[in-house]
């Protein structure tokens, strides 16, 4: 599904990603961990197409296509979803309206008819249940005045609405209390199928109690320095990153 080869990227001339190699197949869950500033969020942003970053080397293939050639919106329409660490507020635009546009853009891209208002409302109600989101929230402006937990639930709600092939969740667990973490993580698990894939970026093993990864990668200074199975996350939780970093040097 996704194949990242020797990916280098810079921001303001500073190299953040320094040769990432990563392959994600359908049905898989990957976790990306690593110390602060190692380039995790940059990797997510670059894959989504954020123009703040410049790709200087390497290639990314998504569903057999050159991902780097596509605009941000076309990547999204083709099924790449980014769950934001800091979801953005859009005053005056209701969540329901925002998602209606997004869903219908995607349908248009696939050559499908736009949903009728009734179909859309029904879909919204069903998907809201997945993350126990009060549907009243959807008549509020996008992320405006949402609590930290509501914002993250709202990200997973959008993921449910858009049903992506590949979801990259950037620190979806940050700023969540224990109950919200359970709801959000369970929601992600419910959405996981054999036809899609999930990449979770996290600092904490506890998220992976719910979202069980097939692979755990450690990113350090813009490179993946180690890959293991879910037990690696447990080991990292206990011992930190020093042993891996020392191994590097």
């Amino acid at each position: 599904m996704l194949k990242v080869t020797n990916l280098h990227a810079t921001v303001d001339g500073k190299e953040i990603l320094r040769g990432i190699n990563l392959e994600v197949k359908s049905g898989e869950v990957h976790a990306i961990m690593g110390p602060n500033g190692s380039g995790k969020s940059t990797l997510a942003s670059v894959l989504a197409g954020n123009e703040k970053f410049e790709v200087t080397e390497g290639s990314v293939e998504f569903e057999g296509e050159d991902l780097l050639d596509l605009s941000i919106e076309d990547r999204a329409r083709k099924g790449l979803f980014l769950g934001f660490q800091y979801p953005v507020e859009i005053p005056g635009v209701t969540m329901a309206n925002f998602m209606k546009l997004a869903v219908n853009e995607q349908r248009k891209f696939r050559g499908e008819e736009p949903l009728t208002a009734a179909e859309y409302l029904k879909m919204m109600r069903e998907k809201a249940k997945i993350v126990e989101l009060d549907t009243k929230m959807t008549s509020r402006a996008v992320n405006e005045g949402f609590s930290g937990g509501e914002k993250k639930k709202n990200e997973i709600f959008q993921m449910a609405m858009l049903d992506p092939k590949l979801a990259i969740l950037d620190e979806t667990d940050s700023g969540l209390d224990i109950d919200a973490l359970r709801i959000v993580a369970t929601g992600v698990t419910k959405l996981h199928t054999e036809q899609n894939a999930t990449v979770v970026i996290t600092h904490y093993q506890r998220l992976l109690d719910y979202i069980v990864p097939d692979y755990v990668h450690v990113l350090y200074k813009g490179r993946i320095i180690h890959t293991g199975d879910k037990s690696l996350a447990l080991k990292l939780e206990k011992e930190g990153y020093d042993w891996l970093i020392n191994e590097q040097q």
Partner: protein
Amino acid sequence: MQDIEMTMAKENENDILQELTNREYEHGFTTDIETELIRRGLDEEVIRTISAKKEEPEWMLERRLKAFRHWQTMKHPTWGHLDIPEIDFQDIIYYAAPKPKKKLGSMDEVDPELKRTFEKLGIPLEEQMALAGVAVDAVMDSVSVKTTFRETLKEKGIIFCSISEAIREYPELIQKYLGSVVPYTDNFYAALNAAVFSDGSFCYIPKGVRCPMELSTYFRINAAGTGQFERTLIVADEGAYVSYLEGCTAPQRDENQLHAAVVEIVVERDAEVKYSTVQNWYPGDKEGKGGVYNFVTKRGLCRENAVLSWTQVETGSAITWKYPSCVLLGDNSVGEFYSVAMTNNYQQADTGTKMIHIGRNTRSRIVSKGISAGKSQNAYRGLVRVNAGAENARNYSQCDSLLIGSQCGAHTFPEIDCRNRTAILEHEATTSKISDDQLFYCNQRGLSTEDAVGLIVNGYAREVLQKLPMEFAVEAQKLLALQLEGSVG
């Protein structure tokens, strides 16, 4: 001429054509031989001619001449935050009989660019035809539609006609109300308008009558051929109600460069008037050539318990200069002003309102949303005045500015003049930009940048758009998005 106007709508024409059409527009006052024109320039004889052509009574001519003599003593105002090229008032033709537009046989003959705009705005086909000048009689029996409206209104005793007709048919009402809110001495353009106004609308709602329909619906079909110096007078008698819409979301092309309209509204005791405007005159091209100068005086007078609400969406014109105002004369009267003013490319807007609190317990509310893109300049100018006798007056003002890009300007000139200690006045102001993060977020959900900008701008303007009559709110939303096409990215 129409073909040239149409051509001007196309943005990416080759240079030669563009230069040609722009030059044509710059000298937009040059004659169209086929129409009935009077000679260029302005003097008493010209005014007598206009009055005679309108078959006006003697008292009306006297009013015009008085206004003209006063205008001659006045100087062009300079206080606006505007860069206005010098206007030669002797180089203007002040009367042209409504030009019979060249009728097109079918929609196929309409400029594709104009058609695209109509479609994007979602204007019904019949109206598209009427607005584009297609012979509609065959398609839609517009005469019968008008007649139906007219009969419904007549049953209620509502008068709705052209101001020229009103001057002939209802002289007592005109003599009582015309110039009672905006006297000819008010300002330079009000004086000019009082001297030379060509046509406009008159609307009278009798005591206790609630106008059964949005006058917008009626007006829209009748809107073709609005004049250069329009004069509008609306009178809502005691306890009456009317919602009135001026203008149209469809692009309005006009060869007249200078528009100086006057709108007067009288809201008698316990009456309510909602006046909505969508202004989409030709704004000039991307280089700032051409475009309409829109210098408007709008004011309403509120008696006891009266309510006057102005809502405006200003997207067109090269230069906009207008301040729809409320004189809150009666106790407990209410004035409202909701405005979205959007400028792009080289457009300039200096707009806002005046709330004059004279009566006791008078309340006013101002919500102004400026949007500037391109190299445009957008200013809010407002005055909240509380006279000494206006016990317990209240005002709430909110002035927001949204900047798109880094080459435009947003300015606010709020003035408060309070002479009564019991007044409570609040003022809030914000300036914001569409952030890259917002655009990235929208893009990541599959929205194109243009759609994202449209969405964000509409969200920002929502509070005002909600005040528009339903069918226009939807079109106005699309209009905002459309006017910003190509301004980002």
